[in-house]
């Protein structure tokens, strides 16, 4: 199954409530994916302070990260969020990523950029949200996922979101059928993978096309052409929030929109916690139609 929730805030007065709302939404899709969960938070002043780059890591405790980076990068700050360590510093994302790669070769990067922090773990999504401190998070956009694993192991690295390009993230409900073929093709073009997970292939595919000049809508249209299987995808970037479903559209998706926010979820119950949902425009995304909202 898997559960997806996402919230793109239009009304800045709601930014301080992003984490509280996302936590409530995530709590409504626990039954859809009780084995692991992850979130991406955009614009939190503690996780991604202005003027600094942020990298999210697995398999790297915060004291290890701090000790390894202290001599390479100035003013490193680390934050522990369950299995994830979030690290930020007043350098570019590329510099921080290079330092992490050199000093912490065993760590898995699960997010990077200037606006996004990604936190993942295994276990009950409500407990994970608490250990992420999600309810206190602020920002302008957030994405969450509860996972019922079908295609690869239940590990923090197998949890969604998959964030493989700057300030990008992707969450997936479904299963790709031809991911092994596409992974081979992308590897042949020099794309590196962290796992054998099918959803990571979707995220790498989108990131690859964004890096080669496609906009998000174009990248998702290409994904529809190239990928077989079942998918409802929610994809976020540093300025966009997008939804697409496969041609059969068997995986559920609902979008609700008001002047204050755009939200997407697997089920209405996750939207029911949002302020003003009574007057929202609610619809199911059409199969193979790409919906993009810009900041």
């Amino acid at each position, binding site marked *: 199954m898997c559960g997806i929730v996402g919230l793109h805030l239009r009304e800045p007065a709601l930014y301080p409530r992003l984490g509280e709302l996302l936590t409530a939404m995530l709590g*409504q899709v626990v039954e859809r994916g009780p084995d692991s969960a992850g979130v991406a938070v955009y614009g939190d002043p503690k996780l991604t302070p202005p003027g600094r780059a942020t990298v999210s890591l697995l398999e790297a405790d915060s004291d290890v990260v701090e000790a390894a980076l202290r001599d390479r990068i100035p003013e490193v700050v680390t934050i522990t969020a369950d299995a994830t360590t979030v690290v930020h510093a007043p350098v570019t994302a590329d510099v921080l990523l290079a330092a992490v790669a050199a000093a912490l070769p065993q760590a898995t990067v699960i997010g990077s950029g200037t606006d996004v922090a990604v936190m993942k773990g295994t276990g009950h999504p409500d407990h994970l949200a608490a250990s992420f401190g999600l309810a206190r998070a602020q920002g302008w956009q957030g994405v969450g996922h509860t996972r019922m694993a079908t295609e690869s192991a239940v590990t923090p690295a197998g949890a969604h979101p998959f964030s493989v390009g700057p300030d990008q993230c992707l969450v997936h409900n479904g299963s790709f059928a031809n991911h092994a073929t596409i992974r081979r093709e992308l590897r042949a073009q020099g794309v590196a993978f962290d796992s054998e997970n099918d959803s990571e292939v979707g995220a790498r595919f989108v990131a690859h096309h964004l890096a080669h000049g496609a906009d998000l809508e174009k990248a998702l249209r290409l994904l529809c052409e190239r990928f077989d299987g079942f998918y409802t995808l929610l994809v976020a970037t540093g300025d966009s929030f997008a939804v697409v479903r496969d041609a*059969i*559209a068997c995986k*559920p998706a609902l979008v609700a929109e008001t002047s204050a926010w755009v939200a997407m979820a697997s089920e*209405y119950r996750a939207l029911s916690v949002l302020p003003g949902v009574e007057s929202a425009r609610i619809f199911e995304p059409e199969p193979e139609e790409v919906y993009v909202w810009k900041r």
Partner: protein
Amino acid sequence: MEALTGTPPEATVPATVVDLGSSSVRDLNQALHAPDAALRATHWRVLNPRGAHSVACGLTEDLSVDIEGHVGYYCAGMNQRATVAVHGNAGVGVAENMMSGTVRVRGNASQSAGATAHGGLIVVEGDAAARCGISMKGVDIVVGGSVGHMSAFMGQAGRLVVCGDAGDGLGDSLYEARLYVKGTVKSLGADCVEKPVREEHLAELAELLKAAEIDEDPAAFRRYGSARGLYHFQVDNAGAY
């Protein structure tokens, strides 16, 4: 959405009110399933469903249930005899496997509305999403708006009336069931064909629209049904297997 509290029910006998903000769906369904449910009240109102699954499913008595808000999956599933109205949208599989009675959705219905339903009437006043009436086995479904792709897929009996448009693959692999569409059909599924509308069809359409309380002219609809070409194995196709 309508105000959820403070509005007196239309029935002269006061309704029994269950607030899902404070009661569980299990409590509600057990009360509706109780042997004396119809004696205690024939009219029930359910408040604050907030997308909950399986609301008012498995009913077997002549009850009238008004649900004031949006519901999740399988609302009024397996219904027998009861009249259930959703004053909002319904999630996946509303009235799935219904046997008799009436289920009315005032808003939109998600995919697989009325799946495998054997009898009774389902009215969706808004749109129904993909696979509306999949494997329908005798139910009547009237949709005020449009239906999504693969509607009436593998339908075996019953009638589907669509006042708007139908998506791709209408009536794919249809056994029987009569399909009426007023708007455009994006494409017909395998073995589904347009058929002439005769007097008896106009009469049954008028009857269905009246029962659904939807004001449309039966003469504006076109009829689709099974070409019955998939009923029997054809030896000419043996090479394809």
